[in-house]
């Protein structure tokens, strides 16, 4: 029962990861790709949660914490780069 739940969670997360990479490949503009990267970071946090539960190695939760913060830094960095360096395309 519990093993089935872990497998189901892994499968659902993998489907989401494929969809996220599809938007990362497709995404017509750079902000769309940044959104996809941020979702992939949260998906990785979910994978870490499943791995911690299935293996019992609790120190990996610290990795999830660091990942949450670095994903935020990456998103804000991309946003600043876009806002300072970009120009409007539609006027």
């Amino acid at each position, binding site marked *: *029962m*519990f093993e089935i*739940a*872990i497998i*189901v*969670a*892994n499968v*659902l*997360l993998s*489907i*989401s*990861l494929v*969809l*996220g990479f*599809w*938007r990362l490949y497709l995404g017509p*503009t*750079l*902000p*769309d790709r*940044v*959104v*996809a990267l*941020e*979702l992939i970071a*949260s*998906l990785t*946090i*979910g994978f870490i*949660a*499943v791995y*911690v*539960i299935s293996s019992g190695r*609790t120190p990996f*939760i*610290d990795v*999830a*914490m660091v990942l*949450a*913060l670095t*994903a*935020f830094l990456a*998103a*804000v960095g*991309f*946003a*600043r780069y*876009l*806002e300072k360096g*970009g*120009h*409007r*395309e*539609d*006027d």
Partner: protein
Amino acid sequence: MIELLTALFLVSGAAFMVVAALGLVRMPDLPMRLHATTKAGVLGAGLMMVGVAVYFGDGGVTTRAVAVIGFLLLTAPVAAHAIGRAGYFVGVPLWEHTRADELKGRYDDKTHTLASPPEMNESSSDDEPRR
């Protein structure tokens, strides 16, 4: 009992992640994609960390899981706001059925500050009244 609860949290969190990814792929423009991924993604990751905290039931693990959830709740809205603002300045096209872009023309191109709204009495005398 604890395993059942953990399984429930894990599977529901993963299901919310699938919803977020579906929204990322299916939604037609950038603000809607942000809307889908930020809320559903944070809820999914938070539920899965709650599952970790429930499964171990240990003080240190629970504290760290709560810290992860707190960082997620703290950083995700700020990041989404920054990306949405940057995308608006870059000129990412909105959905073709968007009714109105209320910010259009209000932002200063150089300083990226918001101009004050138009005078109320002037707009009521000359223009059409707001509906």
